[in-house]
C-alpha cells in the first residue's frame, strides 16, 4: 500500500477520524478511570495482604486467608465473563449497563485483585532486615508502613501500576461487548465485522502506541525513584 493510496483511502473515510478520536478518548477514559479507582482500592488491599501474612507485621491468619481467597476468585474469573456476570452490580452503581461509564465498573473490579497481588509482590521484595531495623529503632507499625515499606517498595509499585494500565488497555477492548466503546470496539465493528482491514490496522497501531507510551513513562518513573 503506497502512501498515495493511504491518502486517497483516507479522503474516502473522513468520518473515520472523528470516530477514532472519540474511541481514543473512550479508551483513555476507561483505562485511567478504572486504573485510578483500582489503585485506590487495590494498593491498600495489597498492603493488608502483605501485613497480615504469617510472620508479617500485623499477622492475622483469618483475614489473610479470606482476603487471599477473594482475590484469587477475582483473579480467576475471565474478564469477558466478569463483564456480563456483574451487570446487576454495574446497573446499581452507574444506573446503566451500557456505555463507557458502565464499562469502568467491571474494569475496576477486574483490576483490584490484579493490583493487590502485584503490590503484595512489590512489598515482599523489601528486605525483612529493613523492617527489623525500623522496629529496633522504635517505629510504630503505621510508621513502618509509611516510612519504610511503601517508600522502599515504590519502584515495584510503579511497575505494578504500569503493568496494570497496559493490561487495562487490553481489557478495555472487550468493553465493546457492553457498548463501552473504545478503540478495541472500533477495531472489531469496523475492522472485523465489516472486513475493513485498514481500520483494524489503524486501531492496532494506536493501541500499540498507547501501550508503548505507558510502558516508557512507567520505566522512566521507576528509574527516577529507584536508588537500589
Amino acid at each position: 500500500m503506497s502512501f498515495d493510496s493511504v491518502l486517497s483511502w483516507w479522503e474516502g473515510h473522513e468520518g473515520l477520524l472523528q470516530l477514532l478520536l472519540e474511541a481514543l478518548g473512550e479508551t483513555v477514559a476507561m483505562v485511567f478511570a478504572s486504573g485510578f479507582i483500582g489503585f485506590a482500592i487495590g494498593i491498600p488491599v495489597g498492603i493488608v495482604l502483605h501485613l497480615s501474612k504469617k510472620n508479617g507485621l500485623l499477622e492475622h491468619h483469618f483475614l489473610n486467608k479470606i482476603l487471599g481467597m477473594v482475590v484469587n476468585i477475582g483473579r480467576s474469573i475471565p474478564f469477558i465473563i466478569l463483564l456480563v456476570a456483574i451487570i446487576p452490580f454495574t446497573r446499581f452503581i452507574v444506573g446503566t449497563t451500557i456505555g463507557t461509564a458502565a464499562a469502568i465498573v467491571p474494569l475496576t473490579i477486574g483490576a483490584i485483585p490484579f493490583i493487590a497481588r502485584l503490590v503484595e509482590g512489590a512489598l515482599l521484595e523489601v528486605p525483612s532486615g529493613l523492617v527489623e531495623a525500623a522496629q529496633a529503632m522504635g517505629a510504630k507499625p503505621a510508621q513502618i508502613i509509611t516510612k519504610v515499606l511503601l517508600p522502599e517498595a515504590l519502584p515495584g509499585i510503579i511497575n505494578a501500576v504500569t503493568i496494570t494500565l497496559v493490561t487495562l488497555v487490553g481489557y478495555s477492548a472487550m468493553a465493546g461487548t457492553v457498548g463501552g466503546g473504545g478503540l478495541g470496539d472500533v477495531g472489531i465493528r469496523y475492522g472485523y465485522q465489516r472486513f475493513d482491514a485498514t481500520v483494524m490496522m489503524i486501531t492496532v497501531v494506536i493501541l500499540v502506541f498507547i501501550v508503548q507510551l505507558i510502558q516508557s513513562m512507567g520505566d522512566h518513573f521507576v528509574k527516577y525513584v529507584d536508588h537500589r
Partner: protein
Amino acid sequence: MIQIKKVNKVFYQAGRAIHALSDINLSIEQGSIFGVIGSSGAGKSTLIRCVNLLERPSSGSIIIDGVDLTKLSTQELTLTRRKIGMIFQHFNLLSSRTVFDNVALPLELAAVSKDKIKEKVNSLLELVGLTDKSDTYPANLSGGQKQRVAIARALASDPVVLLCDEATSSLDPATTQSILELLRKINSELNLTILLITHEMAVVKGICAQVAIIGDGKMVEKGPVGDIFAHPKTELARQFIRSTLDLTIPADYRARLLPTRVEKSFPLVRLEFTGASVDTPVISQLARQFDIDISIISSNMDYVGGVKFGLMLAEFFGTEDAALKAVAFLKEHNVEVEVLGYVI
C-alpha cells in the same frame, strides 16, 4: 547496665523444639564494651535479638537500666527501643533515602522538629566522618561507609546501649579496624554501653573488655578478654579458641609425613602456648640447650591482656634424643606439645 537473666529461647520447627538459648545469664556494666563470641549457629544472633526483643525470649528477663523489657506493653517497648541503638551485618539502610535522611529517620519517628533534626544529623555525620556524603544514596557507598551511616543512625536518638549484630562480618579487615576504632571512640565519648556479637576473634580482642563464649545455645564461659583467652577453663572454650587459631599442616608437609621416625626424618610438632605457659623465650633456649635447629613453618601467636598465647607448627632438626628432651623441656614450661609425625 544490661542484665540478661535466665533467658531461654525455644523455636518450634516442624513440631520439634529447638533450644536456641538455654539459661543465659549476663550482666553488662554501663559504659563497657562486651563481646559475645561463638561459631555460626551457636545462638549468639538470637541472644542479641532477644536484648531488644526483636526475638521475644521464651522465658527469663531482659533488664536495661532497671526496666524489665519483657514486662512492657507493645507501646512502651516501642518507646524504650528508641534508647537502644542497633547495627546489623547487612547495614539495613533504606535505599530510598539519602545518607542524611537515613540518619534522620529515628528522629522523624520521634517527631523531632526539622531544625533540630538538621542540627543533630549534621553533628552525627561529622562524628562518623561522612559530612560530604550527606546527599548520597546508600547504593553509592562502600561497605564501611554504609556501616558508618548505620552507626550514625543508631546514635540519632541518644541511646544508652548499642547492639552490634555481626557489624563487621561483611567488611574487610582494614575496614573492620576502622569501624572498631569508631565504636571505641563513641564508647568513650558518649559513655555508651556496647554489646557486640561476632565470630571473629580479632574483633573481641581489638575492642572488648569482657567476653562471653557461647556454644550450642549455652553460655560456656565469660570473663575479662585476657583471662578467657589465656586460661580457658572449659574444653568448649579451649576448642573455640583453638579453632580461631587453628593451624593446618601444609599439603606438601602432610604428603611427606610419616607416623614413625626413620633415618633422616625429623619431628613435626605443634606447640600450644596458653596463659599457663612460662613466660620465657623458650624457643631460643631449646636451640641452645639441646643443640637442635628449629624451623618454624607457621605460627599464630597473639598477645592479649598481658599474656601470650597461640599455636606454632615447627620442625625440630637434631638427634632423636635431643628432640625428646626438647619436648620434655617444653612440657615442663607448660607449653603443650604434640608430635604430629616425622617429615622426611
